[in-house]
């Protein structure tokens, strides 16, 4: 049974607009032996909800999604839904190297009561536009949950969802509700937003990291956060100033946020986990092939966080 038939009021505002604001995608806490650390994960989820996350999404690449087994992903997906307990929507990132795994993760997300899923274009194979379309059609018709797509041409050898393809998908699929548009490029964002918002005005145009200043005036309604485990207050202030059109203030905050992005994108998410130690929210090492932030790297991160005033303006500990 298709989604539309289950939810005739699907196109209503509240259904789609729940994916907005600076949504948090937690990192994956690991024990020293690199196994999953469930109690810390629960603490982290709770921290994000209490510090203002309008939605939770796990496991993004910063959650080391591709370094987790499918069973591990299912286990923590369930923990995320349970811990958040309906306080904010939870989406599950289902992108996996094998498309069959993606399908299984999507069905699992629906079974455990998640509020939606997020899926990138398939990895590795540089699929044609026809293949990308077939992939999203299969994914969206296999479940009733809202599906957010993820466009990241710079990480995926130029593979991208064009405006035209986005329009096809929207026309075909009632539960295709948004995109995490992570090209960070004015023309690509506009191409998609123009095509999508014309057909589905509530389509969630989201960006990656916290590039809100350049995207909100073009119809962007939020982003997935990179640095939210370090600076949740900054995330909220930046979003609020953008939607209020306080561009001077927004610029100041966006520039600060971008300095943090440059600090953390080096060996992402290793440096992020290193920074969380400084903020009193240690979450353990990072799985290989990603390195774990050394004490020297942590010291450098501390000096940068001090310089940016983050230690004073943001919460310490859980």
């Amino acid at each position: 049974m298709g989604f539309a038939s289950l939810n005739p009021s699907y196109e209503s505002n509240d259904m789609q607009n729940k994916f907005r604001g600076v949504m948090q995608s937690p990192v994956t806490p690991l024990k020293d032996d690199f196994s999953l650390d469930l109690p810390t994960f629960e603490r982290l989820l709770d921290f994000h909800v209490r510090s203002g996350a309008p939605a939770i999404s796990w496991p993004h690449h910063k959650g080391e999604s591709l370094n987790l087994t499918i069973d591990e992903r299912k286990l923590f997906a369930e923990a995320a839904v349970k811990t958040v307990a309906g306080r904010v929507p939870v989406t599950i990132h289902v992108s996996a190297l094998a498309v069959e795994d993606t399908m299984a993760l999507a069905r699992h997300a629906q079974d455990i009561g998640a509020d939606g899923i997020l899926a990138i274009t398939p990895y590795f194979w540089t699929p044609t536009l026809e293949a990308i379309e077939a992939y999203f059609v299969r994914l969206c018709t296999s479940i009733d949950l809202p599906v957010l797509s993820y466009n990241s041409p710079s990480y995926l050898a130029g593979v991208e969802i064009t405006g035209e393809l986005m329009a096809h998908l929207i026309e075909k699929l009632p539960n295709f509700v948004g995109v995490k548009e992570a090209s960070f490029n004015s023309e690509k964002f506009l191409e998609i937003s123009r095509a999508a918002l014309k057909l589905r005005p509530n389509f969630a145009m989201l960006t990656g990291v916290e590039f809100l200043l350049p995207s909100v005036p073009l119809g962007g309604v939020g982003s997935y956060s990179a640095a939210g485990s370090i600076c949740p207050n900054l995330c909220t202030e930046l979003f609020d100033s953008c939607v209020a059109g306080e561009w001077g203030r927004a610029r100041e905050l966006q520039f600060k946020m971008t300095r943090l992005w440059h600090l953390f994108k080096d060996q992402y998410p290793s440096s992020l986990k290193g920074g969380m130690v400084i903020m009193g929210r240690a979450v353990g090492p990072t799985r290989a092939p990603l390195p774990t932030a050394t004490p020297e790297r942590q010291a450098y991160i501390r000096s940068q966080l001090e310089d940016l005033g983050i230690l004073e303006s943001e919460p310490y500990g859980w």
Partner: protein
Amino acid sequence: MTFEPGLVHTPLTPLASDRRIDFDRYGRAIEFHLRHGAQSLAVPMHVGESVSLADTEKRQLITFAVEAAAKRAPVIAHVSDAGTGIAVALARHAQAAGAAAVIATTPYYWTPPPAMILEHFSQIAAAVEIPFFVLNAPDDMAGIKINADLAMKLVGKLPNFAGVVDASLDWQFMIELLTEAARVRPDFKLIAGTELMVSAGAIGATGMFSALASVAPKLVRQLFDLCRQQKLFEARVAQEEIAALRQIVKPGGIAALKAAARAMGRDYGNPRPPLLPLVAAAEKRLLAELETLPVLAAEPRGW
């Protein structure tokens, strides 16, 4: 030496049927741009077929543009070349001819590493006293781009390095550039290198280069003014209209832009080889697509 270029029109170069520059029509084009919203002119940019002009023609064209503008608007001279010495000589000529600034992109063809780009720009900028702008246009330059690190080295070295004209449309680059450059040089300029100005304007761009002003100068000016007033939500409609126009013209490049201008009653001839004019079917399709843009009805026809 604060020079605020504002809205910079980048004219097409009119060519006669024997492929020579039609200066008579070039004069009319300049009048057209000045009457329809240009605050500065930049000549001859890639859209003005700079790469297909002989060195003497470029000199002639820069001199002509400065004289034709007759102090009503500053002229920025585009001096990019493969050879540093050739670009340097053209920059000197531009200054002597009365250009307000020069602009150059990375050297053509050589797939230059950062050290080579740094040296190339340094020699061009050092050859003149007028402001020097760098054009960051990776799509035109086989992916060669400027990063903030390189820009900061130029800031440290060159007192007349006034800013970057960005056609990369890359949010990360623009933010990083302004974050770093503004600390050292508060009047450093980020200029949008295309009409996609809303995001750039949010980030802090104060000027805009426009090729589409040859087709739809009113829309271009409207967008630019809204961005400059930081009415960014209000600018979205104009931004989307311009993006639609850009999407129609872009695949056919300069030939399509010339065809679109011709449809608006301004004939610039065909592009020079190796660029080919649009085949009849493509031109027909282009004109049909332009018909779908109601906003063009308000734009000026003829010169």
